[in-house]
C-alpha cells in the first residue's frame, strides 16, 4: 500500500484489501439508513409544517417583488433614467407607468403596491389610489403633464428616486425599518428621534430579560440548593412543587397574576387591609414593567432551578466539610468552595431563562400594558394588525439571530450537552 495516514503509518485494510474506513462506513450505512427511516415521519412533518413556512416567512424580510411585478414596464423604463441628473424622467417612463397602471387598476393591485410603498414613505398609498382612479380617463399622449395634473408628486424628482430605489426584487428596507433607520431620498439615515421605536424595544426586551434572569437566579439558587441537599423524601416533594407549574397552563398562571396584582386585586386589598397602603393610592403592579417582571420570573423560575439543581447534585457535600475542617467559616466555605463549582449551572440556567424570556409573547401581552411589552408583541402586531409582514419578518430575523448568537456563546462557554433538566 502506498497510501499513508496523516501520522505516516500505513492505511489499515481488511483481509481483502479495502481500506478499513471504507468497509466500516459500508457496514454502518445500513444502520444509519434504518435510523433515518425511523425518524423520517417526524423529520418530514417538521420540515413541511414548521421549517419551510418559517423560512418562507423570514424570506419576506428582504423580498420586494411587488414593485417589479405591478409596474414591470415602468421599472424597465426607469433603469435608463439617470437619477443623479436632478431632472424628471422623460415621457416614455410616464407612458410606461400609464400602461402598467391600467393593468394594475384592472387587477386592483395598485392599492396593494401603494400600501407596500407607504411603509417606506407616507403618502404613497394615497398617491396610488388617487392616480388609480383617474388613469383610465387619461388621453393618449403627453402623459407626463397629465400625471402631474393628477398629483403634483409625479412632478417631483424625489418620487421617482424613491420608486427607482424600491424597484429591485430585494430590499434592505424592512431591516432598516427594524433598526429605526430608513432608506430615504438622501440614502440610509436614522429616523427622526420621535419615530424611533424598535431599537428601544429591543433594548427594553434585553433589559427586562436580564432583570428577569437576575431575579430567577436570586430566587432559584436557594431552592436548587435545598433540592440538592435535603433528604430524598423532602427533596422529592419540593421537586414536585417546582415542577407543578409545568402541569398548569401558561394562561392560567398569567391570569392568576392578573388577579393577584391588579389594583383591586388580592395583594393590594391585603396591603390596604393591613393599613400599609391607603385605599386611594393603591400600588400599580400590573400593565407595566413590574407586572411583566413578576409574572415572567414566576413562569421561568423552573428553567433556572433545574439546571442549577442538576449541577449542585453532583457537588459532593464533602467539599464543604473539607473546607470547614480546613478552618473556613460556613460563609467562606460556601463562597470559595461551593459557589465556584455551581457556576456552570448558573451559566446554563441564566442563558436558558434569558433566551426564553427574550422571545416571550403571551405573558407581556397580558400583563405588560404598554411599557412592559416585548419586541415579540410588536412582531405579533405587525403580523395580525398592521399586516406589514416584511417588517415583522425582519424583526423576527433579528430576534432569531440574537438568540442563535446567544446559543453559540452558551455552547462555547457551557456546552449544550451540559444542559440537564432534572
Amino acid at each position, binding site marked *: 500500500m502506498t497510501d499513508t495516514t496523516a501520522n505516516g503509518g500505513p492505511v489499515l485494510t481488511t483481509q481483502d484489501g479495502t481500506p478499513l474506513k471504507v468497509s466500516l462506513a459500508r457496514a454502518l450505512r445500513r444502520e444509519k439508513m434504518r435510523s433515518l427511516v425511523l425518524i423520517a415521519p417526524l423529520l418530514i412533518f417538521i420540515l413541511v409544517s414548521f421549517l419551510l413556512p418559517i423560512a418562507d416567512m423570514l424570506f419576506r424580510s428582504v423580498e420586494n417583488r411587488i414593485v417589479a411585478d405591478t409596474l414591470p414596464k415602468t421599472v424597465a423604463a426607469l433603469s435608463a433614467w439617470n437619477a443623479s441628473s436632478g431632472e424628471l424622467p422623460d415621457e416614455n417612463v410616464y407612458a410606461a407607468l400609464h400602461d402598467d397602471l391600467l393593468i394594475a387598476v384592472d387587477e386592483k393591485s395598485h392599492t396593494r403596491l401603494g400600501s407596500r410603498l407607504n411603509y417606506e414613505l407616507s403618502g404613497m398609498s394615497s398617491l396610488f389610489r388617487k392616480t388609480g382612479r383617474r388613469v383610465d380617463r387619461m388621453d393618449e399622449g403627453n402623459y407626463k403633464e397629465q400625471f402631474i395634473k393628477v398629483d403634483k408628486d409625479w412632478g417631483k424628482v424625489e418620487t421617482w428616486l424613491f420608486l427607482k430605489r424600491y424597484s429591485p426584487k430585494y430590499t434592505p428596507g424592512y431591516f432598516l425599518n427594524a433598526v429605526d433607520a430608513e432608506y430615504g431620498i438622501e440614502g440610509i439615515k436614522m429616523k427622526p428621534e420621535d419615530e424611533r421605536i424598535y431599537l428601544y424595544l429591543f433594548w427594553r426586551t434585553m433589559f427586562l430579560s436580564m432583570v428577569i434572569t437576575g431575579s430567577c437566579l436570586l430566587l432559584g439558587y436557594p431552592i436548587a440548593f435545598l433540592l440538592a441537599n435535603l433528604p430524598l423524601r423532602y427533596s422529592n416533594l419540593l421537586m414536585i412543587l417546582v415542577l407543578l407549574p409545568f402541569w398548569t397552563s401558561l394562561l392560567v398562571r398569567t391570569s392568576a397574576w392578573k388577579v393577584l396584582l391588579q389594583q383591586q386585586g388580592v395583594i393590594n386589598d391585603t396591603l390596604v387591609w393591613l393599613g400599609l397602603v391607603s385605599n386611594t393610592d393603591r400600588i400599580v403592579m400590573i400593565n407595566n414593567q413590574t407586572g411583566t417582571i413578576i409574572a415572567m420570573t414566576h413562569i421561568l423560575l423552573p428553567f433556572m432551578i433545574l439546571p442549577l439543581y442538576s449541577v449542585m447534585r453532583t457537588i*459532593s457535600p*464533602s*467539599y464543604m*466539610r*473539607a*473546607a*470547614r*475542617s*480546613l*478552618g*473556613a*467559616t*460556613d460563609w*467562606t*466555605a460556601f463562597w*470559595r*468552595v461551593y459557589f*465556584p*463549582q455551581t457556576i456552570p449551572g448558573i451559566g446554563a440556567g441564566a442563558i436558558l431563562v434569558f433566551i426564553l424570556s427574550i422571545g416571550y409573547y403571551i405573558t407581556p401581552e397580558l400583563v405588560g400594558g404598554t411599557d412592559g411589552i416585548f419586541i415579540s408583541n410588536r412582531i405579533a402586531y405587525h403580523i395580525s394588525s398592521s399586516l406589514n409582514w416584511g417588517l415583522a419578518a425582519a424583526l423576527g430575523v433579528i430576534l432569531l439571530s440574537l438568540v442563535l448568537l446567544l446559543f453559540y456563546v452558551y455552547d462555547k462557554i457551557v456546552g449544550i450537552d451540559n444542559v440537564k433538566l432534572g
Partner: protein
Amino acid sequence: MSEKDIIVSFSEVQKSYDGVSLVVKNLNLDIQRGEFLTMLGPSGSGKTTCLMMLAGFESATHGEIYLNGRPINNVPPHKRGIGMVFQNYALFPHMTVAENLAFPLQVRKMSKAEQEQKVKRALEMVELGAFGNRRPAQLSGGQQQRVAVARALVFEPELVLMDEPLGALDKQLREQMQFEIKHIHENLGVSVVYVTHDQSEALTMSDRIAVFNDGIIQQLSGPDDLYEDPQNSFVAQFIGENNKLEGKVTHVNGSLCDVELDDGTRLKADKVNVNAVGDRTTLSLRPERIEFEPQGLENIVKGKVEELIYLGDHIRVRMDVAGNREFVVKVRNRGQKRDLAVGQMVDIGWAADDCKALDFVQ
C-alpha cells in the same frame, strides 16, 4: 500515662440518628498524643459516625468529646483545628494543587510569603513539588491522595482524621500509600485517627486498633494482640483468617479449659471468654498454627483432606475436621513435595494456647 498525654477523649458518647436506635452505644475512648489509632469495623458499625462527631460534622446525642481536655461538643468544625482526609479526597476541583494547599492558610490569614513557603514544604513532603500548578483532575489517584494528605497537614494540626482515605486506590498503590502515610506520621509526630474497614490496612499502620461492631468497641489493642489474643468471636472472625469449632466447656483449669465438641472430640483450649463449666463456646484457631506432624501437641485430631489449593508461598488445605468442612490449614511451601491427597485421612494438631475459647455466637 498522664492526663496531658491524652489528646482526644470520648466520654460516654452515644449517637442516634432517628431517636429509635443507637448507632454509637456508650463510647469511652482515650486517644494518646502522637498515636496512630485506627477505628476498624464493618460498614454500619459506627466508626465513621465517631470520626464525624470528632470532626464536628455530627453532634453527639449524649456524652462529651474532649480535645486537649476541653469539651468540644459546641465548637464548630472550623474552630477545632483538626485536619481531615476524606474518602474521595474532596480536593477543590476549581483550584490548583497549590491553591488547595494554600486554602487553610488563607482562611487563617497567614502572610503570602509564609503561605508559599508552607505550601512548598508540604508538596515536597509528599514528593509532588512540581505539581503545584496542576488541577486535581490532572493528577492520578495516588497523587490526589497525597495532595489530600498534604492539605490536611499543611496548617500543622495536632490531630489528623482520615476517613477510609485509600479506599479508591488499587491494591498495589494502596500498600505503597500505607507506608507513606505511616512514615509521615512517624516524621511529624501528629496524632492520627484512621477509619477503615480493611483489616490488613489497620494491622500495617496502627499503633492501636479499636475494632467496632454494632456501635461498640469490641476490642482496643495493638495489632499483634488483636491477632494473637482476640477477646471475642467477632474480633477473631474479623481479623485474619480463622477456623471455628463449636462445643461445650467440660472442665476449667486455671487459664486453660477442656472443651467437648459437638461430635464428642475433646480439646484443650485457652480460656478467654467463657465463664463456667457447661457454657457453649466457639473455639477460634488460626490456619497457620495447625501442624501436620502433631507429635507432642496438646490437641491431636483426625481430619479428611477435601481440597488442596496451591498459592505459591503456601498451600491451603481444606479439611473436614470434627464435622466442620470449612476447616482450613495453611502449610508453608518449603520446597519438598508433600504427599497430601484429596480424600486422605491425616492427623493434625495444635497447641492449647493457639486455640481460643471464646463466646458462643450462633
